[in-house]
């Protein structure tokens, strides 16, 4: 008990003094997950919209697989990306294993299905409501997709934020492809895992507090986006 309270006060001190290790780890986490979520969203939103409007044999299967992939185990994604990027792998020549880039790729792959699946559902529901009007206006398929994505922008923002929340809190994939190298690929989650096992609880706790604060902030932001959207746009 004594040890925990002591660790906690040390953790608070780390945070309030803006400890440089703490800041650089948190900063790298934000950067990696931020870029991963941007890249994933850029691909997943159009893909989700396309899948919502497209009709082709096997579509239900694609949707089922996509929905299933929302729950991909991060360690498995990490393993796959590791195999791709390892020296013998097809992307080995890039030489980016154990770099932040590798972690971005792993996280982007992890959250692509989340954003795409949510976008598909959201856009398909909206399509049901808008279809006849948009067809009546002679909107092309691409114009329909763009209009729907823009119309559902607030709901989709919350989907993207959900993806970001999952990315930044994930440990398995980045541990495998990043290697948790001090000052290079050490993120909040991997640092927490390491420091805890080493018995350095203050830094682990401080990072945990920062991480939880970020995740809560993301959820608050998502809620705020939704409620102001309904109020201001209907």
């Amino acid at each position, binding site marked *: 008990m004594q040890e925990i309270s002591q660790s906690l006060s040390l953790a608070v001190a780390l945070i309030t003094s803006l400890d440089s290790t703490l800041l650089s780890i948190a900063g790298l986490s934000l950067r990696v997950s931020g870029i991963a979520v941007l890249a994933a969203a850029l691909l997943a939103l159009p893909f989700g919209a396309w899948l919502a409007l497209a009709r082709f044999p096997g579509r239900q299967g694609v949707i089922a697989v996509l929905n299933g992939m929302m729950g991909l185990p991060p360690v498995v994604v990490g393993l796959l990306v590791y195999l791709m990027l390892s020296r013998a792998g097809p992307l080995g020549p890039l030489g980016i294993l154990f770099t932040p880039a590798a972690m971005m790729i792993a996280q982007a792959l992890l959250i692509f299905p989340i954003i795409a699946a949510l976008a598909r559902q959201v856009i398909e529901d909206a399509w049901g409501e808008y279809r006849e009007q948009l*067809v009546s*206006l002679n909107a092309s398929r691409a114009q329909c997709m763009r209009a729907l994505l823009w119309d559902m922008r607030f709901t989709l923002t919350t989907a993207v934020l959900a993806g970001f929340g999952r990315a930044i809190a994930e440990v398995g994939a980045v541990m495998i492809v990043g290697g948790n190298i001090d000052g290079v690929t050490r993120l909040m989650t991997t640092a927490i895992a390491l420091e805890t096992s080493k018995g350095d609880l203050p830094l682990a706790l401080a990072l945990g507090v920062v991480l939880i604060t970020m995740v809560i902030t993301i959820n608050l932001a998502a809620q705020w986006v939704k409620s102001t959207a309904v109020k201001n746009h209907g």
Partner: protein
Amino acid sequence: MADAKILPLAVVGLGFRVGDINVLDGATFDIAPGSRNIVLGPNGAGKSVMLRLLHGLLTPTSGRVGWSNPDALAVRRAQAMVFQRPVMLRRSARENVEFALHVAGVRNVRNAADLALDRAGLMRLADRPARLCSGGEQQRIALARAWALQPEVLFLDEPTASLDPAATNAIEEAVNAMHRAGTTIIMTTHDLGQARRLADRVLFLNHGRLVEDAPAVSFFAQPTSPDAAAFIRGELLW
């Protein structure tokens, strides 16, 4: 308005069958330019289905919708439709009109949109998020949006079914204004009063059948079918 006209319209044996049910059963009629055609009938008669078939939102299972222009794109572009429940994009009223104009390939959408809103008396709503407008306002915006496209033919599917008398009146006035500007009107209603106010010609539909097709004056004065006579007397048809 498109250069090459798409009217007159010749509808021949138009049918829509779902399973064993004839939702629309072989309707044959013509639509002449400049007329106000009211498709009248009780709920479930097949009015909405017929309008969707004419507008190309549904594919007929029999018969044909014969526009007098072979160019499919010209035919599409010369029509607009106002639905029973207005569909507003999550944007301002003006941007809703601008979107329709943009899709139609109009260059200066801002001017054309403002013109359409002004004509419909809706300038005060221009910057309002369309989805926050009342049902009546949204329907008027939908009509302004259709009007902005300057269609040769305007379809309206019970546009006032869920509106109060004031909003209904505003819609009817706008429909008449569009008609005066040369637009051909094809509108459904189950409301006898509205049919009396607006119709030049009545197409009376019951149980998927085009029971009667007559000029409005003679339809209301001397309906030739027992079904239409019963409907005019206010007796429900089943």
